[in-house]
């Protein structure tokens, strides 16, 4: 499995993503510069990592969404290639039109970093096949603008087509209320593209790959990708 991690000015979790990929695939991902126009040949997965691309001084992800490399990322997605956008990467995917909707300021207006339970909403995708159906996983969140919003028809379509990847929930799997850290519509933590080859999510599974550091519930996502790409 060959992965490329895109490096935008202001990305800061590229190393964390690379570490999780290395652990799951045994291979160091390529680091691709935002100003490049092409991805290296033979890439299976493109990762847009977390961070504050361009300082997030405009809307989060708005400038990165228009970086030269994004045309290549779009072509890769259109060919059915895998794209994973984590946190700022999710925001970039929404800003570049690869995924629908927007990520607004957290409802309480504070940045929030904590451990958070998620419910795996759909198992049969390239990103989640290693999880059990509706498994509850514990991962990290760290964002100030993770409040997912879209117009009603978009939300209805996402729900109807089973394109909600993860929902915020409590340790028992119950969504809603205080278990939603940011006010996100329908407790959405991550969504898929129509073909399920693009996943955008706010939480950081790449930080939950080690029993000494909070647990290993994030590994499943990277192992699923590795298994899919080599299958």
């Amino acid at each position: 499995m060959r992965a490329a991690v895109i490096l935008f000015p202001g990305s800061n979790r590229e190393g964390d993503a690379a570490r999780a990929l290395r652990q799951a695939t045994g291979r160091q991902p390529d680091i691709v510069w935002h100003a490049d126009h092409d991805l290296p040949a033979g890439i299976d997965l493109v990762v847009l990592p977390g961070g504050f691309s361009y300082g997030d001084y405009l809307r989060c992800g708005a400038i990165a969404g228009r970086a030269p490399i994004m045309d290549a990322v779009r072509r890769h997605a259109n060919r059915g290639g895998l794209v994973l956008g984590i946190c700022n990467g999710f925001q970039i995917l929404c800003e570049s039109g690869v995924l629908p909707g927007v990520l607004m300021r957290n409802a309480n207006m504070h940045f929030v970093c904590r451990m958070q339970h998620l419910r795996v909403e759909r198992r049969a995708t390239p990103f989640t096949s290693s999880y059990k159906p509706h498994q509850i996983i514990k991962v990290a969140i760290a964002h100030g603008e993770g409040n997912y919003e879209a117009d009603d028809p978009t939300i209805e379509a996402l729900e109807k087509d089973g394109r909600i990847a993860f929902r915020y929930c409590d340790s028992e799997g119950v969504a809603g209320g205080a278990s939603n850290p940011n006010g996100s519509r329908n407790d959405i933590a991550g969504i898929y593209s129509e073909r399920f080859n693009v996943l955008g999510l706010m939480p950081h599974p790449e930080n939950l790959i080690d029993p000494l550091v909070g647990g290993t519930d994030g590994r499943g996502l990277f192992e699923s990708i590795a298994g899919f790409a080599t299958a």
Partner: protein
Amino acid sequence: MQTEPAITSELVAAHGLKPDEYERIVGLIGRAPTFTELGIFSAMWNEHCSYKSSRIHLRKLPTSAPWVIQGPGENAGVIDIGDGQVCIFKMESHNHPSFIEPYQGAATGVGGILRDVFTMGARPIACLNLLRFGSPTHSKTRHLVAGVVAGIGGYGNSFGVPTVGGSTGFHRAYDGNILVNAMAVGLARRDEIFYAKASGIGNPIVYLGSKTGRDGIHGATMASASFEADAEEKRPTVQVGDPFSEKLLLEACLELMKSGAVIAIQDMGAAGLTSSAVEMGAKGNLGIELDLDRIPCREIGMTAYEMMLSESQERMLMVLTPAKEKEAEAIFRKWGLDFAVIGKTTDTLRFVVRRHGEIMADLPIKELGDEAPLYDRPHLTTPKRPKIDPVATPAPVSNDEALLRLLGSPDICSKRWVWEQYDHLILGNTIIAPGGDAAVVRIEDGPKGLALTTDVNARYCAADPVEGGKQAVAEAWRNITAVGGRPLAVTDNLNFGNPERPESMGQFVGCLEGVGEACRALDFPIVSGNVSLYNETQGAGILPTPAIGGVGVVDDVKTACGAGFRMAGEAILLIGETEGWLGQSAWLALICGREEGAPPPVNLAVERRNGDFVRSLVVDRRASAVHDLSEGGLGVALAEMAIASGLGAEIAALPEGPAHAVLFGEDQARYLVTCAADSADAILKQAADAGVPARRLGMTGGDSLRLPGEQPILVSILRTAYETALPSYMAGGTPDGFANQ
């Protein structure tokens, strides 16, 4: 071409220079200074940059050990942590700016300290802080807490370094002068450390990073004067932080350092270009010539004076190998940063500044730093306070009520509301997150890690500066020990009032004596730090607050020990002697409304003996949980261990003495340790053999904390008291413990 204003006594005073200091300048250069030169002197000779009131006392601190590679005097301290790796760290204050503009003041405080660390070639791997706010009932406190916390998070989160620990407290003495001390910790290879010392004649001096604007002019001067009611009018001297540029600057600098182009590097912090250029030249015994026309400016028409004093952020100065200039420029252009050759090194030992072809300053470079005034200010020893007799100090409320109130009080309550706004998980190496004794951050893929903490109890320091200074160091040492770390070195941030007042100066001298004594006794040298004086508003000084940032090494992070009970049925042991010391305790202050008496004495030999014993238990994996006892004493520590796990405990027997003093006294050198029930006797025997006082208190388990003679309290109730206080206060409420501070 603008002409510079004539030098008048008013102008000299406005630069914070005393008449005799001005005479010293005239004597040194043999003529009246130009306006630009006056600005340069004011920047170099203010308290913040020259340490003129503190230098003679700082010399008494221990700063060396076999593992210390660089002590105070560089951008940050450097210690050897083995395997060819070094830890580079420092703490610095941004108190005055944060009071005026809390978000940007705190943000640029973080930015400045990160720069100090990566200037030396280190990649930052953790940040900590120590914050002190005014009384919760003061009208500005909520606003300042919200702004400072958002600012620290806003900068560190974007830059991409985990903020893993800190200390947040409140006291009315900080009403008009809060404390924002930020600490950064970085990692480098032992053979890849970079210094500020310039070398070689005719080498290019290169300006890197963001453009220069008019922001922050005289920031260092502001930090060297006490606050008056016009503080708000000083807003324009607060700089604006840009963590995005800093992140680019970090990556560009580290890439450039790898290229071998860098001879010397110095960040532009307080007093900006002036201080950084003079320091590089003076350290290298070289002159420096600058052509200010080449400086990348953000605003038009900037004068030499403004450029020399600007404190615009995210800027660096380097001396480069001439042959690598082009390669260096390409790296900076790639990262979208400014790069300009603005001068050269010379053999004249003069600091020469040109603007529009005219010489605006021509000063002897060594004397700018070396000849700064040095004061031995009069200081008054703080009178000793009497010991509080616990028998003569009966408890006004029941012990269970006192415990709940202490858990919900501003200094002790959970600071989750604060640290959840900091990204403490980025980089994926946070082994022990905020909320424990010390944070533990793994180094790369391990097995080694760093144990990090910031500590001080200013109430102790005010009551007895020497004991308080000792206690601050001992507390940091103990926190590192509790997680299983070997304490190695300290960065200090000495926050005090006006040094021109003998009482304040006496607090400074006393605290330093205590800090020095403890650092010597514990082999815990000071390798970097910062002095912040003039923390007073309208004549009222802050509590003396020598913040201690401690760094230790955990040899294998798998053995690092947390503070929460691990499982039911384990034995709970108390290590250390309990006398029931109530003087200056949180209990006496909160429950009785009395900040009185002598603070607990610190016996450094006992501290070391008890700590070494506890550390050996952790390293040998015989302790399952460890928590040091500090504010709120045994009662609060037991409750915190229960809250952290959700598990209760049954305490069968307490040490002798009045129960309230035993539960809430703050005797030093104590720890709570849990272990497998069947290994408790062996541990107690071993403790007895080592001369370490230790006793069995009870057993973990159940859903409540059961203290002898008290009503059981559900852990969920303890947790509610502990966790809801600060969020409720920040939402505009007045929780019980926050009402009468």
